[in-house]
């Protein structure tokens, strides 16, 4: 690398470096200090694991995110591989329908769930008509769970499809030529080949479910997931120290999930909103 290049690169990277430092790193450092400045001092960072109401919220959030990840991967795995492997009339339309909600933010997803299971939603209307009982599920953890699955399916399907399309069909042919039965081909060739994509998609799914906020906000402020707790601490209790400490703990978990996926797959994994 020539010395002149060094100067040029420095010049090109300087604006982003300075903005990033001023608007992200310094604020983050400040937030970290604030997190330790509350009545409990630095112990605030542990309270997510020690104080009962935060523990409960933490466990709820973790459980919810894990469940969302598992269900999303199962649904998207089947549908994604199916779409990547089969060509038929209406394929493009089906893919378009499955990817349409890709750009919907959490708030809108929340509203979609209200349309399905809210007080005036489709499901209560239908169940009312069938059994005379209105089953309203939107404003609860169930609604949030369905919302997160709804949110995660499109991007997971895209990831799975992209990976399945790249899968060399000759590998399967080779396995078959060696005498493997269809299920063995899936177990020995297809799943190992798609594993990195699943891991990557799963990590993003998990991290988004952990940190997402819009859907919970739309559905009900009573749902006790971690981002909601942070929001309440900040706005209702004006306890910015606690909110800061919890944000850091939450951020660490999502960041770890993504970093783990990245180190396991070796590929670039970026979370999506």
């Amino acid at each position, binding site marked *: 690398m020539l010395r002149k290049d060094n100067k040029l690169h420095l010049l090109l990277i300087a604006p982003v470096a300075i903005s990033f430092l001023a608007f*992200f790193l310094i604020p983050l450092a400040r937030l970290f200090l604030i997190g330790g400045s509350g009545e409990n001092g630095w112990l605030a960072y542990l309270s997510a694991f020690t104080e009962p109401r935060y523990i409960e919220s933490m466990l709820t959030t973790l459980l919810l995110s894990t469940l969302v990840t598992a269900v999303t991967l199962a649904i998207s795995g089947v549908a994604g591989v199916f779409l990547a492997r089969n060509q038929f009339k209406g394929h493009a339309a089906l893919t378009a329908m499955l990817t349409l909600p890709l750009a919907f933010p959490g708030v809108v997803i929340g509203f979609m769930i209200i349309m399905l299971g809210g007080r005036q939603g489709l499901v209560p209307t239908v169940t009312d008509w069938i059994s005379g009982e209105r089953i309203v599920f939107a404003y609860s953890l169930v609604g949030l769970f369905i919302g997160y699955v709804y949110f995660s399916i499109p991007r997971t399907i895209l990831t799975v499809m992209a990976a399945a399309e790249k899968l060399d069909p000759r590998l399967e042919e080779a396995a078959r030529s060696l005498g493997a039965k269809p299920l063995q081909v899936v177990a020995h060739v297809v799943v190992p080949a798609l594993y990195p994509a699943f891991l990557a998609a799963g990590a993003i799914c998990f991290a988004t479910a952990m940190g997402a906020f819009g859907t919970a906000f739309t559905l009900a402020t009573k749902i006790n997931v971690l981002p909601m707790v942070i929001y309440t601490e900040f706005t209702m209790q004006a306890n910015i120290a606690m909110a800061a400490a919890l944000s850091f703990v939450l951020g660490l978990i999502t960041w770890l999930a993504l970093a783990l996926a990245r180190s396991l797959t070796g590929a670039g994994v970026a979370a999506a909103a």
Partner: protein
Amino acid sequence: MMRRSKNFWLLLAFTASVSIFLILPVVLSVLAGLTKDYFVGLSSGLTLDWVIKVWTEYQRSILLSVGIALACLVCSLLLGVPAAYVLFKRNSGWSRAAEELMMMPVALPGIATALALIATYGAVGEFRTHWTFILVGHVLFTLPFMVRSVLAVMHSIELNVLEEGARSLGASFTQRFFSVTLPNCAPGILAGSLMVLTLSMGEFNMTLLLHTPFTQTLPVGLADAYASLRIEVASAYTVIFFLIIVPLLIAMQAAKRLTRTS
């Protein structure tokens, strides 16, 4: 036409039901936004009244969001393209660490970034109530997507070799940046730009904390409508959001195809 197995039909049915699960609420909300009285049903008749009502009431939020998205695009282009170029050229441990660092605002929950910004700049004069305060958050969040998208294209077109080709023919940095680097990275810049616009238009996690009554964006307005207004108004507002976001999404998919074929 080859004969389909039973499994095929089973899987097709499954995939179709998933897509119905995804599309049904979209259809419902579009209908609700265009019906006179959703509780009565379609029989009450179709109307544009709700959409017009939302437009007159929330015009400022909608236009503010469009404005922020465009400003965010300009910033992420000016910051992101040069950053991607440097990260690409200096393919070392340091640059990978820098890339990782740059991704942090995406990995971190938006609420944390927002709190950090408020804690640091919340008391700085007019800044807190100015729309640029939201812009800062949006740029932090969208920049990584621009950088990733441009970096990916730089790798796939083997920009290193193209640049060496241009250098061997006597082109200076500025000459080759505008005649070779930019034009050949265009598909990645386009894809990144669409992504930035889409994300900024829909950003809520951070914006909810960053906004003030003077700077309410479209998604914040949406949340407001969902919480307090009747379902027809909320739906009509959602329809307006769809009208903005769906074309962006379609363009994004088209851009992706463009990159794949070129």
